[in-house]
């Protein structure tokens, strides 16, 4: 396999590295770049715990080849604190105890960040729809929805 030299912006910093065609973005972020907030969950796009922002939109880093990131702007939870909503969400999640094990939290917070960037006044249904692809196996959805709702309302 011919390796590819790629460059992209990761949390505001330029990174360049060589990747093989079959390297998955999630594995490169975690294994080679030390970015541990996106987790390996289902590894097939269902659970949402590998969520990152690519060019401002949430995506499944388990479903992208690393080579596709060439030229992109990637933001993970580690670098999302410069975004307007992320820190407010994290504070609310902390206050509402909206984590149990925390495995889903990075993905949930990035999905909620994308939601509030698009629509700062979401309905309860909009919130549930926005995080429908982020599975919490501790079944802690109620405090999660409440935390996002309160972050939006600035309570």
């Amino acid at each position, binding site marked *: 396999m011919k390796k590819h030299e790629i460059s992209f912006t990761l949390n505001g910093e330029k990174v360049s590295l060589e990747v093989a065609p079959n390297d998955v973005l999630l594995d490169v972020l975690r294994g080679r770049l030390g970015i541990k907030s996106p987790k390996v969950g289902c590894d097939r796009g269902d659970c949402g715990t590998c969520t990152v922002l690519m060019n401002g939109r949430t*995506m499944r880093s*388990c479903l992208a080849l690393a080579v596709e990131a060439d030229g992109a702007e990637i933001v993970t939870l580690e670098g999302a604190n410069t975004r307007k909503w992320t820190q407010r969400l994290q504070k609310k999640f902390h206050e509402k105890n909206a984590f149990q094990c925390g495995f889903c939290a990075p993905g949930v917070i990035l999905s909620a960040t994308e939601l509030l960037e698009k629509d700062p006044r979401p309905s309860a249904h909009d919130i549930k729809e926005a995080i429908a692809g982020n599975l919490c196996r501790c079944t802690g959805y109620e405090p999660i929805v409440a935390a996002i709702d309160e972050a939006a309302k600035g309570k």
Partner: protein
Amino acid sequence: MPITAEFEYVRPRDMDEALHVFSLYKEKARALAGGTDLVVHLKEGAARPEVVVDIKSLPGLGGIAMKGGRLRIGALVTFAGLIESATVKAKFPVLWEAARTVASTGVRNRATLAGNICSAVPSADSAPALAVYGAEVLVLSLRGERRVPISEWFAGPKKTVLAPGEIVTAVELPLPAAKHGGCYMKLSRYEGEDLAQGGVAALAFADRTYRVAVCALGPVPRRCPAAEAALNGRKLDARSLAAAKTALLAEISPISDVRSSKEYRLHMAQVMLGRALESAVSRLFGKGPRYGEGNIA
């Protein structure tokens, strides 16, 4: 999970170059757009290409444009792109409604309409909407362009009539000549991020003609001409709906799988036909639920 299969990756910027790669490698080349199906298939070994051709830098494959009474949806248009399109919402509301039911936001941000019909799973949510609108798939190869009606596109579960060496460049939908109301009714185990246990799309026109199509109720998504014939020319009421349900049962062939039994699907197909038609007729007259609401059975 790493991908164990080995392949080359190319990202052509020129259509001619891309078509030469597809022509040279034939079934050993796979097009990569959103990757939400392909990367899973690469991980599981269900796809074993020699070369993955990333089509995201090719010119002319993006954008949603209305021209001469036809809507052209480029092969790189994602489900998020469809949902955000005011034209799709206003002119092809059933496609808009169906797009909102596909997977979840993070997948819709990457997954394309063209990829959905190329994956050709029986439960493809976009397919019933494309079928009732009479969509055509635009296919390109070194031999030239051809147009495939969506009714001839699906060749079996996960199979299409796309030949080795060809790629999909766009999907085109003719604007219905008359005002319509419509609905895509999806049956799933829970609201949000589930594959359809069954799906029914319906269009209703003021001249009392109707169009019906289904997914996940047989090996391929399909129009249902017998159900349509039972309705055409008649007002939607208990009698015409009963006739349509009987006709529908004769043209669907659901299976039992992990998501539901055949019997449940046969029963719910009739329920959903009724709900889809009732919504479609209400919406035709400016009533009923707003598009995107109340369509998860």
